[in-house]
């Protein structure tokens, strides 16, 4: 019964697949291309300005990232090379303070 049902559905599926593939290609109405081109000419400045905005956003993001990177590297270099007072004090503190079980 189950196999028979599967076979039935498979038959219908095959027919529907063929029906889908047999669909004829529709014809576009005359003057369709000109109408699309009209819209594209209209969309052209808008698309260009969108491209411009996108370009500006990426450029700004790039510049900001570079500034942050330079600042981070500078700070790291500065903190490494300058006399490290904070670290010195901490070492001193550790040397002076007796440990709990001493």
């Amino acid at each position: 019964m189950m196999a028979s049902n599967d076979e039935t559905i498979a038959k219908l599926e095959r027919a529907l697949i063929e029906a889908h593939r047999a669909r004829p290609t529709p014809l576009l109405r005359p003057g369709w291309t000109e109408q699309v081109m009209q819209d594209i000419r209209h969309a052209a400045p808008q698309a260009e300005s969108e491209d411009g905005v996108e370009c500006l956003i990426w450029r700004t993001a790039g510049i900001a990232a570079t500034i942050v990177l330079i600042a981070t590297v500078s700070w790291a270099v500065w903190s490494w090379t300058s006399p490290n007072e904070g670290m010195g004090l901490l070492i001193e503190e550790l040397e002076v303070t007796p440990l709990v079980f001493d």
Partner: protein
Amino acid sequence: MCARAVRTSTLGVLEMQPSMTDETVPVLKTISDDEDLLRRIRRGEIDRFVDLIDRYKDHVTRIIGRRVPADRVDETAHEVFVRAYVGLAQFSGLVPFGHWVASIAVRTCYDFWRTRKGEEVPVSALTTEHQQWIEQVLASRSDDHCSEQAHRREAAEVLEWALAQLSPENRAVLTLVHLEGHSIRETAQLLGWSLINVKVRAHRARQALRRILIDNH
């Protein structure tokens, strides 16, 4: 070099999938012409886009004609080419233009059904003629007779009736995977979805179609 390798393999896939490529578009020959045209369009020669439209409109209408109602083909194809123009900056050239525009066509058709989802389009019941067609298909003993039945008007109407009951996502995946025979990978690329999403949806969509057919015959 890398782009060339990708292009060659993509062409290989396209040549194996006649349903998504247009037999009237000699893909290999048009690639260099397309590149030249695209360069000129990007330089500002907008009117050259008409050459791309002429080259690919049959390809696009063939895809759309199988997905949206006949009276909506013109406007959908229109939208596809406007989207292609507006999104031209995103076209990397790693795949042939025909494949890229096919992807836009598939997604535009998916959007078409998504926007209609909320409209509560009534699904008409099958008529006696449709029921008779189903009976004839089931009764056909040879493949030839079955194939003959598939070319009848009722076949397209029953298919449309069944697809109308699926969600836009299931409809898009079922059309690509089961009706047109695309691989999961190709379908994922065309729809811009993940492989796993397409795989799960393809299974669910087929089950849903089977349920619809079982419940109504």
